Each structure stands twice: as C-alpha cells, then as structure tokens.
C-alpha cells in the first residue's frame, strides 16, 4: 500500500490531503470513491498517475 510504504498513518495522509482520517479509511477499504479533484491530489502527493493509484472497478 502506497501510504504504508511511506510509513504514514491514515491521519497523516488525511492531514496532507485536507480530509478526515475516516475518509482515508473509507477510500482504502473501497467504501468511498474519491472525487476527481481529491483523486488528483492523492496521485500528485505520491508523484504518480491517477490510473496507477486507482484501479477501475470491473463490471
């Protein structure tokens, strides 16, 4: 997991992105799909492309 590889807690990542720790948890567990702006912020934070961070759900 990208976050864990960097040794960040959910609260650390939430603080970096300006969202709650609960939001990070919900995104990581697949219970919440982030908005496009938030997805871009996440990708930018990890210096990656969005499609490298998020996998498209298969129908």
């Amino acid at each position, binding site marked *: 997991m990208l976050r864990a590889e960097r040794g960040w807690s*959910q*609260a650390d990542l939430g603080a970096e992105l*300006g*969202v*709650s*720790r*609960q*939001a990070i*948890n*919900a*995104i990581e567990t697949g*219970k*919440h799909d*982030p*908005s496009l702006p*938030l997805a871009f912020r996440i990708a930018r934070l990890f210096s990656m492309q969005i499609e490298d961070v998020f996998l498209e759900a298969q129908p």
Partner: protein
Amino acid sequence: MLFYRSPASAGTSGPSLATIRTLVTVSLLAYPAGALTRALHAGGTGGLRLFEIAGLGLILVSLLTAAPVVGSYFQKIVGDKAGQLDEFELKLRQRALSSAYGAFTVLTLVAVIYAAIASDAHLWIPRTYDEFNGLFWGVFLYASLLPTAFLVWSPASASELADSNTRLVD
C-alpha cells in the same frame, strides 16, 4: 444541527458507533416517554405524583444520554458547517439528513392529524405553558438528534464508518 460548534477533539476520539447508537436511541425514546408520563399525570397526588417524578426522571435520562452525542464525531458530521467537512463526511451527512427529513415530516404529519382529532375525541393535547415548553424542547431534541440516529443506524453509513483502526466500532 442547530447551534453546533465543533469541538477540537471531534473526529479524533470519542464514543464508539455502538455507544452512540445506544445513547441516541435512549435519548429519543426517553424524552417523549417522560414528557407524556408527566403530562398525563400532571397535578396528581400520592401515586400519581410518583408518575410525575418518573416522567422527570425519564427526561433527565434523555438529556444525560444526549450530552455525549452532541460532542461526538457523528454529531459533527450532521451538524457542523459544510466548510468544516470533507467530501466523505458531506456524503454521509446528505444521506442522514435526507432520511431524517422524511421521518420528521411523517412525525409532524401524525402530530397534526392527532391535534386535529384530539379535542373532539377528548384526548390529551398540550394546554399549559409547561406542556408547550415540553413539546418545544422535544421537537428541538428530535430536530437535533434524528439525523444522528439515521447516520449511526443506517447500514450503509455504519459500514462506511466501520474502522478497525479506532474506536468508531466496538
């Protein structure tokens, strides 16, 4: 909902989801039970006086169980300013408020229908200042806590809030 001010600790710690479920349910049930017990036995003596005291006790229980809910993360979601919430919390809030609005509308409609037939059917209706005061604070309590109740009891929201990392879920 009204007059909510986010405490510094909201979102970092606090009662678990299961605890808030219990507290909000007890509060929402105890208040009308207490208020009605008092109203139906007002001005009594002897045994009836005990009903009044029991009614006051239930109202006290309602207020004491509501207090921890008001400062919780769950109340922050339904009551804080939109600018203080992130997109995930706003989604949960919208779902809770939408459900609570429907329930509150039904409760209001039932109350209006009851009031319309109560005097003809010789049923109890509020008349004194004390009774209207109790009714006002009951409506206030429901307006404040009903969205929280839907937030913590909704299976979808509870699942999204479920978290093994904190005390949100017991």
